[in-house]
């Protein structure tokens, strides 16, 4: 057991944990942030994606020791109070969720994508999102959601 400190959604949180315990478990079981989902435990579905210092990361494969002192953003940390992000709103508007279990990972991934590429092409979106599984296979509405958010973002910049 050791003590690890992580900045989670802007709050400094500490946990006593075995060093190899997955970040996913710590977020869900110690910090009560259940928005981040387990899907496979092998980084193949990316339902567990969070941002570690801004980088999309599979939290199921990330030992807590490796994120000591970093800043982690989960799905719960995106909206500002009641104000949804453009991506969250677009997922509502374009029916981007069926069961919604993959949605947190999708939105977190797309958030990082739009941060580094404000006007992604469809193929750039597909490339960024392809590691994520949606078993409802709602891929078309998810793509439409990301594209809508990008368009709105662009419009708001203009």
């Amino acid at each position, binding site marked *: 057991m050791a003590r690890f400190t992580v900045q989670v959604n802007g709050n400094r949180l500490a946990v006593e*944990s*075995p060093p190899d*315990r*997955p970040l996913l*478990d710590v977020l*869900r*079981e*110690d910090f*009560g*942030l*259940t*928005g*981040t*989902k*387990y*899907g*496979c*435990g*092998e980084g*193949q*579905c990316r*339902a567990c994606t969070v941002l570690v210092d801004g980088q999309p990361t599979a939290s199921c494969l990330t030992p807590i020791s490796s994120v000591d002192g970093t800043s982690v953003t*989960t*799905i*719960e940390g*995106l*909206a500002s109070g009641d104000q*949804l992000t453009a991506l*969250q*709103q677009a*997922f*509502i*508007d374009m*029916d*981007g*969720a*069926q*069961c*919604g*279990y*993959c*949605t*947190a990972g999708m*939105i977190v991934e797309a958030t990082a994508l739009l941060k580094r590429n404000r006007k992604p092409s469809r193929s750039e979106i*597909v490339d960024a*999102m*392809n590691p*994520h*599984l*949606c*078993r*409802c*296979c*709602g*891929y*078309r*509405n*998810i*793509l439409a959601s990301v594209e809508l958010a990008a368009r709105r973002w662009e419009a708001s910049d203009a």
Partner: protein
Amino acid sequence: MPERFREDLCEPDRKELAEGPAYRFELDRRDWISSIGAGLLVSAAGKVVFSPGGASAQVRPSQRLHLGEDGSITVLTGKVEFGQGSRTEILQAAAEELRVSPDALQVVLADTAETPNDGSTAGSRTTPSTIPVVRRASAAARELLVRTAAEAWNLDASELRVEAGAVVGAGNRLSYADLARSKGPESTVDDNVPRGVPLTEVPDWTVLGQTLPKVGARAIVTGAHRYPCDIVRPNMLYGAVLRPPSYGAQLESVDLAPGQELGAVAVRDGEFVGCAAKTSYEARKALESISETARWRTVAHPPSEGLGTYLKRHAQPSAGGRRGARRREHGDVDGALAAAQTVESSYEIPYVQHAPLEPRAAVAEWDEGRLTVWTGTQRPFGVREQLAEAFRLSADQARVVVPDTGGGFGGKHTGEVAVEAARLARAAGRPVSLRWTREEEFAWAYFRPAAAFEVRAGLSEEKIVAWDFTAYNPGTAAIETPYAVPNVRTQYFPCDSPLREGSYRGIGATGNNYAREVFMDELAGVAGLDPLEFRLANLDDGRLSAVLRAAADRFAWSASKSSGRNRGSGIAAGFEKGSYIAICAQVRVEGGSVEVERLVSAFDCGTILNPGNLRAQIEGCVIQGLGAALTEEIRFAGGKLLNGSFAQYPLPRFRSTPPMETVLLNRPDIPSAGAGETPIIAVAPALANAVFAATGQRMRSLPLRASAA
């Protein structure tokens, strides 16, 4: 719909899974420690309640709709929401008939203590069965409101109208909340519920027939929604369960001490061994230490290699009952075959996994001998029975609550995880959360049945005059041909299945329609006709012809013939669960892989309730079908899965999503049928037929294995 299918519409597929508890517990009485934490139940408030004409005899009158004195209106059904949109459509149905804004309604789903038993959420039954029940209850409530007002104001009911949750007329206003305050106890109101109130006609719909934003979407996109695996109870532990090393292996001995020494609660009860600890990490570590001490007796188990032959050898033609063999025949099949040009072929399909993204999960809590389990199951009342049986409880001592769940696709009919969590919670004396690993979900859930088919037909020019279809193990959905054939014999044999199998999207219809529609292409070739023309020439079902024509028109089928080398187009159609699908697909075969370049679906499920949700269901179903057609196949040997992980079992992803179009044929004159299953049944045969057009290779087994010419 041809009359001959009415019977099948009412019969569940013989592979629809409903089984008893997975364990026979000894239940050491020393386990009893009362758990900590009060119950969650908050009863829906309000006195006025309606349930005219429930779906099931078990529906208590007071369970369908609650009108609160505070103005709240709550609709209750035993259906579950797994992503298919039931919650939103049920809300629309109630809002339409009550004449209230959808925002003013709550929908409570699948809580055995609160909601009526509407059976399982399966077989595409929510739309044709539950929606009408909700509409009737809501219409009756509206009528009671009107009658009450008419009486109070001494006006004729025809002078009154209901809008925005209140009846108005001659300067008066009476809301549902006023009604709730003015009426007596539930029992007296139940007796006064108006019967036979007409439902709102389709042309007058303002809420139904529209695309509504998904109810609960905000909680999903913010991460606030609690799926079954996210439920947290006070003082809760996390569980892990020991699995056999191979199918059929029996536990001979195990030592729990290593797990207990790590601080976990460890329990063995018969074949059940599990741990519970403060974190899932500790539970897994404890279980690993216990697992190392386990001794197993393994048994021989057949491999997936040669599975079709195995199934035919292990057919059970004399199996009777609801899950038994079935044979139907009309006309003189043998005579017609003898007089006609005969064609025959055989087909095979493998086991496939539903692989819902949320694995099975449950949180179980005991309180003074009463059990509450939050779990993702499509059969909440069935799982309550399993729990009651496993723990020897009466039905009212067990409660199952189904939070909106992360996918099912027919794969979550069972309650094994609920039973396991409850056993651990009982041993621990604290609530326990148990979530299966992906590995467990692959190996220990159940599979879409593997199957084999033998088909013969007799042709007389462009007409099929005899049809002889034998299906080994797929299930019975869509087993009867929708084509107009005078002499038909259909046989279904369940087989001794090496793997546990059960419901799936469309279940038996996936295999039955694949075999039939590929064979139809083979027959078209023998008859020398275009595959579309051949189908139309053998159809007397106008709705099936209509979806075929609609898909072909949008696809420009007749212009697509001149595809290049290794590129070709295929068509397939099907009818199941009251709805009709046709798909045209263009593929390109490169090396050993099939790329879908374009796909057009046309779909008719009667009156469209919510076009956006319908489109999402069709598209998701079709893309899910691409996996079963092109990549999915469970392989096993020595009683172990060989590809039980996402890395080894490729599923459709963003990149595998082709350009696709969906044509919705709305039929406001026909009651709505479900839509979440039928689209999948035309995917594999359309692609198989396209591969034939591209390469000349007949695709008689799934997944398709083509090679470029």
